[in-house]
């Protein structure tokens, strides 16, 4: 097959990956705290583009490569370079449930999963049988802590699982409707502070990897900022998904039609080859 077909194939694959991302966004349009993903494409040239040579009067019979200069464009590809998560604030809706919390701002809650500390925006917490504050998956919600002062030169040792579990928020006496949660995450019963929710922010949210169940994994410890500068905690509210259906459907339409366009190119190459094989050689 002529090599011009491969860029079109890479385009088709890229558009179908874009559709996968859009489909995931649409499937999660009702998931509280969900942040939409967006695929970004990158143009790759597998050969460096040839420098523009001076035009010369040909002294020999020119080959097709000299007449029709592609300068590497016939080996260009497109790939999905990154899938960026859009951390725009989702709309906050009132639920009336005293243990539902929403974050306005860039903060995240800290939760302890079986594989370690993760971060989430989905604040529909409940109490487990022991009175500890947990997510719907049963992950413990952690309370605020101060970072240990790092020893000179050496990084602070990673906390053990026991130390992390000790930061669980336990509400003794069953009555969540009497709890109030203030804007900085303090948990009060009446006027007495019972505990403090951990709200953390990140220097660069692009380094957060999604892990499913509405949790994120932080790749770099230095990315974590324990003193949230701009986050407010709202009780009895939940942050909804930030998926904009209109945008997603437009992306989907675009992806489908671009896919079709790329496939038409592939088909055309096929027709040309078929012509070359069948018609040119006809006796």
């Amino acid at each position, binding site marked *: 097959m002529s090599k011009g077909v491969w860029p079109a194939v890479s385009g088709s694959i890229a558009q179908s990956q874009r559709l996968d991302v859009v489909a995931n966004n649409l499937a999660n349009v009702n998931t509280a705290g969900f942040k939409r993903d967006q695929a970004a494409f990158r143009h790759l040239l597998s050969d460096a583009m040839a420098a523009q040579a001076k035009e010369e009067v040909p002294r020999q019979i020119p080959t097709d490569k000299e007449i029709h200069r592609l300068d590497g464009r016939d080996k260009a590809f497109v790939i999905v370079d990154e899938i960026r998560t859009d951390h725009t604030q989702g709309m906050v809706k009132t639920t009336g449930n005293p243990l539902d919390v929403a974050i306005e701002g860039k903060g995240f809650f800290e939760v302890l999963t079986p594989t370690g500390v993760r971060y989430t925006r989905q604040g529909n917490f409940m109490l487990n049988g022991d009175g500890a504050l947990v997510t719907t998956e049963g992950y413990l919600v952690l309370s605020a802590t101060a970072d240990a002062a790092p020893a000179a030169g050496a990084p602070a040792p990673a906390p053990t699982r026991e130390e992390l579990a000790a930061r669980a928020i336990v509400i003794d006496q069953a009555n969540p409707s009497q709890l109030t949660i203030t804007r900085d995450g303090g948990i009060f019963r009446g006027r007495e502070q019972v505990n403090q929710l951990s709200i953390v922010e990140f220097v660069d949210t*692009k380094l957060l990897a999604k892990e499913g169940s509405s949790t994120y994994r932080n790749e770099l410890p230095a990315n974590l900022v324990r003193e949230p500068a701009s986050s407010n905690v709202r009780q009895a509210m939940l942050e909804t998904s930030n998926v904009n259906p209109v945008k997603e459907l437009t992306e989907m339409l675009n992806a489908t039609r671009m896919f079709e366009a790329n496939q038409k190119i592939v088909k055309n190459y096929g027709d040309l080859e078929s012509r070359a094989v069948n018609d040119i050689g006809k006796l």
Partner: protein
Amino acid sequence: MIRAVHTAATGMEAMQTNLDNIANNLANVNTTAYKESTATFHDLFYQNIRDPGGQAGPDTVKPTGVQVGVGVKTASVHKNFEPGPIKVTGREFDVAVNGDGFFAVESDNGETLYTRDGNFQKLPDGRLATVHGHVLQPTITVPQGTVKIDIAPRGIVSAVDSNGKRQDIGRIQLVNFVNPSGLRALGSGLYQISDASGTPNQGNPGESNFGQLQAGALEGSNVNIVTEMVNMIQAQRAYEMNSKAMQSADTMLGTTTGVLR
């Protein structure tokens, strides 16, 4: 593309569960002491095609990765124990809990179940029981010849006989749980203990965090119709959108197969 089809399928299934739940809530909008169920969703795991933070060069780290999600799952469908409105009925055996707390009743096989439905009846032997015949625990027996029953807000039940003499015949107790949403709903307004609910904590109405009793009244359903309607619209449109994603993926697949004639 094939991935998009399965992702959209999970979305449609989740919205179906959502709608089933909403329909159940709406069907029970007039049920005594019904607690509305809330469905919550989580995104499923992600396939790491490329992890974020990989090396792009000797000094440069790629800021993001390529992770594609595979859809949504139903994380939980749990009951929301916000108190419902209290409706006055005037019946002497009707009790509503104005606050937190469940009545304990004994089921047919001797197990203790819990309910908020205070529509009690008198069995032929005088014991107070629910309409299904589950006897209220601790047992309260109305003596023969009683003309009127009074239930005080703090639980004390007193009976007045034909001579006008009043005697206390027992005290209604309430039971509380750390996590009432973790109770297993059995239907007919009954709930059963599970590992997630915590141990039952019995006490007198009006003391510590138990609610007071309101005699001659029943607790209504705590379903908020407006919220359910809005949720229903969202569920329906989300279902439609996911079906469009599936259609798109199907069109793309059709285009691909149409390349070869």
